[in-house]
């Protein structure tokens, strides 16, 4: 479930990145974050599938809920990290302008 949530986040970010008019929002960073995590969880899922076989696709509801909660937390954390990078790099100069305002 965590893998699925992260993959969906990666796909949505990639679509937004493709549709962007300029690189001011640094969406590429967010894409790399989500795709990197998705690929790594894919590796984890391969080993889990090798161990559990068809049981891999029928997780217990409690495990699924926990994994969903984890997946959503991961998305929130990645977005916080992206926001911090965006504010530090400040490609639009909005933070600088706000700080320079008298």
């Amino acid at each position: 479930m965590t893998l699925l949530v992260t993959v969906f986040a990666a796909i949505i970010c990639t679509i937004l990145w493709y549709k962007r008019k300029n690189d001011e929002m640094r969406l590429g960073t967010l894409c790399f974050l989500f795709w990197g995590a998705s690929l790594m969880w894919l590796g984890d899922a391969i080993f889990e599938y090798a161990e559990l076989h068809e049981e891999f696709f029928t997780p217990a509801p409690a495990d699924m809920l926990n994994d969903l909660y984890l997946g959503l937390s991961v998305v929130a954390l990645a977005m916080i990290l992206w926001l911090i990078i965006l504010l530090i790099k400040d490609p639009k100069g909005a933070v600088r302008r706000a700080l320079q305002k008298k």
Partner: protein
Amino acid sequence: MACFLVGAAEAIVVTVASKAIKASESKKELAVRSKGGEKAVDALREKQGIPWSRKLMWLAYLLWGGAFLLAYEHVWHGEVVPWFPFLTAMNDPGDTAEMLHEMSTVGVTMAVIVTVVWALLCVAADLILKRRANSPLENA
């Protein structure tokens, strides 16, 4: 248990390599600029396509992103703690052996998957650039 450490280690190596290559690329551009001016630099960039330093930074971003979010997952599952030795598996020799085994299997597989996908991404990016350069609309 600590599979993300393999990706994180690769990310450190790739980031350092990318910075070093970027420095050598800048030096090369500076030398070309002093000899042939801005036009020579543009010609060099066109000939080179996407610089290696940029491609390596893509890999670094993928690895750092993956390692960071996986580290959080390990905190979630209580495998990483904010006190020494930071990895709960380090408290027991049996768990440590299991952790090392997991790093050498799952961790290495994760790093290989990310690297292979990055390699495919680089090939695709080069092909897209080449296709754009050869397209009649681009040359018009």
